[in-house]
């Protein structure tokens, strides 16, 4: 239930088939009446939070935006270096940076639909195996290279060829371009199409091919080209509202970008708008939430983000600061369990080794969590309501599955084990037999910030209360950035984690698919997006219903089936639904309000991420 888990490369695949296919015609997001009094606002937020649809919308009175100002954004981690999408383990802080220097092909609309942004129109072939996009004409990268079909194709191909992002794009068979149009071919009918390349995915962001060709790590380069490539993979050249100025890695250091006068939505651009308003934006890494919060109070930061509900709660009702909360499309906090054991015929079939062993080195064989009884025992012993109340300040809710309230697959009762010490002890007896251990020894890996560590203490104490001498829990704090590496390599037993944020369940297939569950082997790590490495044939069937069936009722039933499978097999120990908070000085305006050139409202906050082009400061001065 630790709060600040680095999210994996959320190469998130969007979303609803129909909405995408129709190209975003629906403009259902009428601006709601804004509550006028702060108290009402608070009440409203509380209600939204209960429903799971706190959107993080900036509902303050609209004033006329003014130009100028320098915004300092305190972000939670220095999550990627370099930032080039094909090589980046890009978590939320990194995504914010990408959003400042570039734009994505598509963007998530306010209703969860997909809205074209750099793309003008999108047309699928009849069999949905090939999609053709028309790119807006006249957009230029910061270095003057025009954004045409070839540039888009080049960007997509770098991602496809990269060992890091390639597997997630494995269904693309070919990308061709002609003038401003790009055609993407798939190996099987893809109902979503390239709409997946929206602002939630790092590969949706476009960067200058001229610049990419100077980067030595570019997988499209030949060996000779690589030898002479001298570009810096952190000095991003995108199409965005801000141009790269400087980047120094490390805690306390920052990424600085200055206003792009030639932004395609600016006064010199093709739309003739006035974006962006800020002169400069600086993302300062401040790993420690107390450091960020103190910095905000001390005036060193103008805006910070956090998923620490305890800290968010402190700002609630504080009129000195603006607090925006978002938990729709949100992630779930959990203790991820490594279930690698036996063989994986699914991934094995792809590799020509049907007997593919999941744990060839026996690294996970001592993990009791490979036994269902142990997983159940652990789940029964966790008082998630108490976790939500004491660690989440009561403003988050205990989770029972990967789908939060409001989501398609959400269920009141998923069959996930409830807090019940008697049941837990019964299961533990079975667990001791299954695992052959007494006491049962579990290693828990968590982030090293004090809050997560304290939460882990609470969890350990709950298990102690339930099992006493029967269990021995060893907690290991690790730096946030390291967690992802261990998860990918499978070098953990239990890990504090936060994941599965997304608008539609189909986006989440690769987290749960047996095809993406690679064996545990840190010496030859293979990309395993299914970090828990569970192989669940029923899950495969259920996910196909979600992904390929256009019937909403079937999709909903399938998603619920997925949810129940998680409840039944206890692949993860759920704790709470994640709540994101954006806290800023009141001078910072329109923090999450963003519309496309066509005037379509976009989703304010998607799993903590929001747009920055539209932000402005009162009197053109963010510090006051």
């Amino acid at each position: 239930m630790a709060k600040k888990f680095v999210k994996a490369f959320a190469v998130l695949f969007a979303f609803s088939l129909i909405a995408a296919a129709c190209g975003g015609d629906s403009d259902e997001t009428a601006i709601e009446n804004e509550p006028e009094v702060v108290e009402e606002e608070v009440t409203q937020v509380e209600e939204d939070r209960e429903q799971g649809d706190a959107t993080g919308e900036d509902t303050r009175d609209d004033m006329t935006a003014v130009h100028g100002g320098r915004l300092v954004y305190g972000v939670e981690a220095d999550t990627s270096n370099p930032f080039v999408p094909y090589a980046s383990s890009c978590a939320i802080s990194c995504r914010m940076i990408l959003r400042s220097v570039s734009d994505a092909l598509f963007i998530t609309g306010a209703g969860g639909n997909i809205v074209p942004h750099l793309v003008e129109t999108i047309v699928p072939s009849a069999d949905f195996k090939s999609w053709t996009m028309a790119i807006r004409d006249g957009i230029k990268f910061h270095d003057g290279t025009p954004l045409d079909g070839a540039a888009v194709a080049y960007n997509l191909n770098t991602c496809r060829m990269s060992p890091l992002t390639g597997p997630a794009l494995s269904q693309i068979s070919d990308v061709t371009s002609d003038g401003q149009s790009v055609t993407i071919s798939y190996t099987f009918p893809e109902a979503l199409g390239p709409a997946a390349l929206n602002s939630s995915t790092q590969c949706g962001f476009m960067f200058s091919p001229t610049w990419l060709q100077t980067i030595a790590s570019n997988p499209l380069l030949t060996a000779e080209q690589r030898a002479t490539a001298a570009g810096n993979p952190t000095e991003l050249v995108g199409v965005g509202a801000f141009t790269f100025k400087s980047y120094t890695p490390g805690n306390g250091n920052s990424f600085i970008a200055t206003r792009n006068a030639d932004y395609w939505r600016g006064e010199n651009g093709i739309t003739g708008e006035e974006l962006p308003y800020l002169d400069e934006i600086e993302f300062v890494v401040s790993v420690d939430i107390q450091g960020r919060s103190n910095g905000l109070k001390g005036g060193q930061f103008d805006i910070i983000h956090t998923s620490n509900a305890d800290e968010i709660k402190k700002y609630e009702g504080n009129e000195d600061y603006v607090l925006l909360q978002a938990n729709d499309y949100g992630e779930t906090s959990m203790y991820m369990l490594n279930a690698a054991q036996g063989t994986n015929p699914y991934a094995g079939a792809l590799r020509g080794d049907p007997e593919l062993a999941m744990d060839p080195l026996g690294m996970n064989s001592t993990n009791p969590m490979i036994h269902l009884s142990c997983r159940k025992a652990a789940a029964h012993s966790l008082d998630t309501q108490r976790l939500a109340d004491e660690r989440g300040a009561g403003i988050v809710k205990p989770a029972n599955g990967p789908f939060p309230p409001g989501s398609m697959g959400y269920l009141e009762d998923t069959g996930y084990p409830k807090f019940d010490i008697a049941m837990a002890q019964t299961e533990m007896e079975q667990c001791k037999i299954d695992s052959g251990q007494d006491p049962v020894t579990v290693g828990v890996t968590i982030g090293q910030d004090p809050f997560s560590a304290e939460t882990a203490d609470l969890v350990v104490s709950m298990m102690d209360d339930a099992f006493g001498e029967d269990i021995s829990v060893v907690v290991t704090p690790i730096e946030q950035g390291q967690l992802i590496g261990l998860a990918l390599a499978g070098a953990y037993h239990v890990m504090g984690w936060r994941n599965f944020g997304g608008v539609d369940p189909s986006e989440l297939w690769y987290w749960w698919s047996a095809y993406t569950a690679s064996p545990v082997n840190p010496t030859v790590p293979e990309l395993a997006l299914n970090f828990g490495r569970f192989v669940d044939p029923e899950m495969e069937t259920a996910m196909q219903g979600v992904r390929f069936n256009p019937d909403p009722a079937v999709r909903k039933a399938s998603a619920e089936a997925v949810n129940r499978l998680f409840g039944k097999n206890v692949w993860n120990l759920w704790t709470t639904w994640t709540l994101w908070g954006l806290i800023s000085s009141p001078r910072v305006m329109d923090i999450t309000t963003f519309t496309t050139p066509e005037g379509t409202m976009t989703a304010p906050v998607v799993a903590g991420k929001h747009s920055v082009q539209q932000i402005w400061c009162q009197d053109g001065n963010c510090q006051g």
Partner: protein
Amino acid sequence: MKFLKRNIGRIVLTGLVLVILFAWFARPPFSWTFGLLILVGAFGALVTDANYAARRIFSLIPVLLIVSFVVFSLMSSLPGDPALTILGAGATAESIAQLNQELGFDQPFFNRYGNWMGDVIVGDLGTSRILREDVADGISRSITPTLQLMAYSLILAVLIAVPAGMYSGYKNGTRQDRIISYTMLGFLAIPNFVLALVLVLFLAVGGVTIFGVDIGFRWLPAARYVPIGAGWSDHLKHMLLPSLSLAMSQAAVFMRLLRSDMIGTLRLPFIDLARSKGLKTGRILFRHALRPSSFTLITVMGLSVGSLIGGALITEYVFTLPGVGSYIFTGIFKRDFVAVQGAVLVISTLFIVVLTFSDLLYLALDPRLKHQSEAA
């Protein structure tokens, strides 16, 4: 030459101050600054006692070799495959082997050490594959805040310790002495991370109320580093709290030393002579008693660099300063052994040089020592 010899202490001190000022305004690479500092110190010592200084400087070479070896073997034994760490999760067996070859990890230990040392001697600390920058650049960048933090702390500590120590030594045994001594003893017992938290709570964050009285203030910033280039006052404001939290325990150490030395000095006959000449107390204290009482202080100031470096690491952590402590910390957690190796080597070298240097400075300030060392 005679003038030189007689005033060598002053000349060296002036030289040092000039170098430091030059370093801050003209911002040369830190290696130059160090070189200059060492040169000035060595010059002072050479003029005073060439033999001794030369011996000290030459004796640095084996020490530095030991340090480099220790650092290198420590970092080489780190668990996990460095190539894998560098390449990240998507690495294949071939690419790991290739990178290992490229980085020379397939070579025997001593070959690697030799190669590394060869590079280090010409100032090339290697390239960090994880931070993707030259390690020397990274250290140059991050050492500035650390050195500033250490320098300000040292200055603050001296500013607090010297008057307090002198007064306390002068008033030895009185109530004032006891109050000052016990207060300083208290500061000695407060760990700097606790002091940092307390200072932030009361002086930076605000909103602390006790019985309805607001005792929290928002006078000073609690996070971030502002370079000198962005404005002196802003820079100093941002550095004040970190420096203060680091300085207090040092101040306590200095003050206690100065106090006991002062008590000793004030008992010496030449102080009575000065008194009998009718000099004012202040003049006696500052012009006559301070200098002979401050030699231990100077030595200990050199030694305190070690604890300052350690303290700076924690202070940087609490105050989000992008110093060399953060650099090492990040490097360690990201298993970026090239960066850590370089940074630890630089810091240790800095530490040793400062230690030696404080010895030499001591010599320059107090030429009597030359004779003492002969007599001993």
